[in-house]
């Protein structure tokens, strides 16, 4: 069938609708495919997230919610504008807006329009080296048609624009006393503004592409993405209580002619109730938009008069040569490795990288603090714990954008690392060190200001500061190690370069460290820091196994239980228990039952979470409670032996008159009454054996012999217990590990633990 229609150029309507369909398809792919993960034939589904339908559902649930909440914010903005611009006492909930308020609302629309425009331009298209117009122009569509179709398409497929403008128009319509018609009015009123946004966006990206080189474009893109966030914060601030003064001041000084701009006409057209006047306003709005569009397309045609690609882009590059030649010979003060120098050169030149890793975290954390209602922004200057948490949080966030991304920043050039006679681990270590130092910058500045502003700088200030500052290099290593698992350096789509599960894991681990900063007990602080360091080492070891498979993920062995899992579980257990205790006990006295419940809830949460993650990742070597060879008797005998040692140790302390002081120092362990029994005989063996024997000893056992693994896991087990019981608990840990080695299931070590606890508690109660 060769229809005659196929010989001519594709008409406007058809090309527009095709373009729109293509764009929508791409958007849906972008959101949905993120969780689907491409499958190679025969792949045994070891990609973290096998295809999910739920993300589509989430997409359709989240959108209306977001529209609604944006609507609520703009509605608040209108109220705030009314409060600021109308004379006090004037009751406005009539129909007509005062001219001052109309100007104010037009200003609000303008800021929202600007924010959405900047977000769209900053969303990445500029940073890409390929340009779709280069491809579209090869299709049989007339250039004019193509330009119009493009503007129309971009006015419809513009999520951030729709997000910003439709709810705002809805709020205006609502305050103009419309009810059921609000959605229709909102969409119709937003469209002319969206058309203008699309026009300006097209003019900007076409113009820039023809004038600038790829590297400049990427840098400009970085600047725009920063601007877009600032504008967005400013737009949102109008709707917030107590944060809106700055923007309301500007709104009050806006000139009258704003009433005649498309924004002003939109507000007036929605607000006007007389049919004739409204029609006049709508028509003048449409005329204005049409004229602007026509002028815009003329300008576009002028821009494209020499074709859609700027020629000689490479020749232009040559002019930009700097004094680079001398750089290599310049002696440096610091002893930096080649990797450090390359990373710093990239940071200097690639604004995008700089903005992503160092500027955006500051903006986002700062924006949250300034606009949020938590009061952190004011209390951080008086409370050193809050200051240290903010400082650490900021550094941890920048690490997630930098150290976590080390492999992704290598990207497709990763092959180069494989050609060097150095292990990739060394390169990554270099990078972890660099980022561990670079990200100290903001915290140091914060602490310097804090020390200056604080009423008094005492021990708590220094302790909090030290904990936060020491945590940052540790977390730099954790971030790089997790980044090895969490990145897809060869992925083309930027949103698929990172596996979200690992980002969440990193973020949650960082949040756990906040506990070390705020806990009032120095011992817990120390234990937590040691745990974090061990975790960094363990994760690093796990990552090392993975490094050979970076460019060949399909060949990598399936995940196995590792020491790092155990350490994560210990930290999680700590924090979950502490949080549960706070919730249960509140301000009351700690009772035995409360302690038991807090412990059990913390343990159960940890256990359930670990099992869930293992099941999802199809991890091998997850410890079993019951095995073929349960060795129950051996467990009881070993527990009795360890218990005997424990009792003997207590007698020793008693003989040296040390027991009283030791018991005094750790009151919580003896004041539980009868609740001690279920805690010591059931809950503690159940959860602690899973973590310390199952995960930590089991994980260590993969790389070490029986004895080193048993001793190391027992040492870790001992330091999380009260100081006076470290020695017997260490022996208990060794016994339980040896029994686990024989039985290969957790029942026997659990019996060791329970028997030991039973004997020691019995001795405490009846013999002493």
């Amino acid at each position, binding site marked *: 069938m060769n229809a005659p229609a196929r010989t001519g150029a594709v008409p406007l309507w058809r090309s527009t609708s095709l373009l729109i369909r293509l764009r929508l398809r791409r958007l849906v792919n972008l959101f949905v495919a993120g969780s689907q993960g491409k499958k190679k034939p025969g792949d045994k589904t070891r990609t973290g997230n096998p295809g999910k339908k739920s993300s589509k559902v989430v997409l359709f649930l989240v959108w209306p919610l977001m529209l609604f909440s944006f609507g609520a914010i703009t509605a608040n903005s209108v109220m705030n504008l009314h409060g600021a611009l109308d004379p006090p006492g004037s009751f406005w909930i009539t129909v007509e807006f005062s001219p001052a308020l109309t100007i104010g609302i037009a200003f609000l629309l303008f800021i929202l329009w600007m924010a959405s425009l900047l977000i769209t331009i900053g969303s990445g298209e500029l940073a890409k080296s390929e340009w779709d117009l280069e491809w579209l122009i090869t299709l049989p569509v007339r250039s004019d048609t193509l330009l119009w179709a493009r503007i129309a398409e971009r006015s419809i497929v513009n999520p951030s624009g729709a997000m910003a403008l439709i709810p705002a128009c809805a709020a205006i319509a609502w305050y103009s006393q419309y009810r059921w018609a609000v959605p229709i009015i909102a969409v119709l009123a937003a469209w002319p503004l969206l058309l203008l946004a699309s026009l300006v966006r097209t003019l900007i990206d076409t113009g820039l592409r023809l004038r600038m080189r790829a590297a400049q474009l990427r840098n400009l893109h970085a600047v725009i993405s920063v601007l877009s966030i600032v504008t967005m914060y400013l737009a949102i601030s109008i709707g917030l209580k107590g944060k809106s003064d700055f923007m309301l001041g500007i709104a009050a000084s806006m000139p009258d002619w704003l009433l005649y701009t498309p924004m002003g006409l939109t507000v007036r057209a929605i607000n006007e109730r007389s049919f004739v006047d409204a029609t006049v306003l709508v028509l003048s709005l449409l005329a204005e938009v049409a004229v602007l569009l026509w002028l815009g397309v003329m300008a576009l045609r002028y821009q494209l008069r020499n074709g859609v690609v700027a020629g000689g882009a490479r020749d232009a590059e040559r002019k930009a040569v700097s004094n680079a030649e001398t750089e*290599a010979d310049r002696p440096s003060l610091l002893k930096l490795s*080649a990797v450090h120098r390359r990373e710093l050169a990239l940071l200097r030149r690639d604004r995008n990288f700089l903005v992503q890793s160092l500027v955006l975290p500051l903006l986002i954390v700062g924006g949250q603090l300034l606009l949020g209602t938590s009061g952190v922004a004011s209390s951080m200057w008086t409370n050193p714990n809050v200051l240290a948490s903010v400082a650490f949080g900021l550094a941890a966030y920048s690490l997630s954008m930098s150290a976590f991304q080390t492999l992704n920043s290598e990207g497709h050039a990763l092959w180069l690392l494989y050609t060097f006679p150095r292990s990739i681990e060394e390169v990554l270590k270099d990078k972890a060190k660099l980022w561990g130092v670079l990200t100290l910058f903001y915290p140091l500045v914060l602490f310097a200001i804090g020390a200056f502003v604080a009423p008094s700088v005492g021990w708590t200030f220094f302790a909090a500061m030290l904990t936060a500052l020491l945590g940052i290099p540790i977390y730099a290593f954790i971030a790089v190690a997790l980044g090895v698992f969490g990145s897809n350096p060869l992925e083309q789509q930027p949103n698929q370069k990172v596996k979200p599960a690992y980002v969440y894991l990193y973020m949650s681990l960082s949040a756990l460290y906040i506990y070390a900063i705020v806990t009032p007990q120095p011992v817990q602080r120390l234990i937590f820091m040691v745990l974090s360091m061990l975790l960094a080492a363990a994760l690093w070891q796990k990552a090392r196994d993975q490094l050979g498979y970076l460019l*060949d993920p399909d060949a990598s062995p399936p995940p196995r239980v590792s020491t790092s899992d155990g350490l994560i579980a210990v930290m999680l257990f700590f924090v979950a228990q502490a949080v549960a205790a706070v919730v249960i006990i509140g301000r009351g006295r700690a009772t035995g039952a409360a302690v038991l419940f807090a412990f059990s809830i913390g343990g159960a949460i940890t256990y359930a979470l670990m099992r869930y993650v293992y099941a999802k990742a199809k991890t091998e070597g997850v410890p079993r409670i019951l095995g073929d060879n349960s060795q129950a008797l051996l467990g009881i005998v070993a527990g009795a032996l360890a218990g005997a040692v424990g009792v003997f140790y207590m007698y020793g302390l008693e003989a040296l008159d040390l027991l009283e002081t030791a018991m005094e120092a750790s009151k919580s362990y003896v004041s539980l009454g009868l609740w001690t029994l279920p805690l010591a005989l059931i809950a503690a063996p159940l959860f602690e054996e899973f973590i310390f024997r199952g995960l930590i000893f089991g994980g260590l056992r993969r790389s070490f012999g029986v004895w080193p693994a048993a001793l190391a896991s027992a040492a870790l087990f001992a330091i999380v217990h009260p100081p006076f019981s470290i020695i017997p608990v260490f022996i208990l840990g060794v016994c339980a590990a040896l029994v686990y080695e024989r039985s290969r299931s957790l029942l026997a070590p659990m019996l060791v633990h329970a028997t030991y606890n039973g004997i020691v508690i019995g001795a405490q109660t009846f013999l002493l």
Partner: protein
Amino acid sequence: MIEFQQLSRTYGDFTAVHPLSLEIRNGEVFGFLGPNGAGKTTTIRMMMGILVPSGGRALINGLDCHSERALVQRHVGYLPDNPIYYDFLRGREILQFVAEMHGMGRREAAGQARRMLAEFGLEEVVDEFAVNYSMGMKKKLGLACALIHDPQVLILDEPINGLDPRAAREVQDRLRQAAASGKTIFMSTHLLDMAEKVCTRVGIIHRGELTATGTLDELRARVNSNVSLEDVFLRLTEEGVTPEGASTP
């Protein structure tokens, strides 16, 4: 010396490289010939430790290419099929980085980089960002990266694919020079004319299996005629040809 011992690679059910055994002696220029998708790049990536063998192993100078990668790389230079470089880095900087990663000092690396760039006629573009290079320049830069530490073994994936005749000739001359100085070269190509000019021995891989190896004369003898390598190639990669009598160097 390069040695494959039953080297194989599968992707799920698909076998990209069937167990492959081969030995390449020092000083040989070995051409790895085969049609598109025959498994050439997969094999080379296994030699570089980029892909992990599903079975068997590849050895260079007696060291395993996967488990002892870093040691192997000290003596190996590699040019990928399509070299991709870091954004925002100039050709000179990339070369210097590579040299430093191979253990040279900063000054020495800078000097060496300058020498290589001059040798490869890249002086004009040293201060451009490498991502903006044309394909030919990228390949030349890649070859400079591969040669900067004066390796004993060169592994080249399609070294002149996509180059204009002049650039292709230059690269071939460089390779002949390298071979004359005693380097072992392993290169994949589907450009037979190039193999005929440069290689001392060739292997033909087809659907992941080595169908023949030998000097050009030996291969001609196998198909019983005094024809061009192209005919030999076409005959040996015909559908349905079984690799009987393969790998008899």
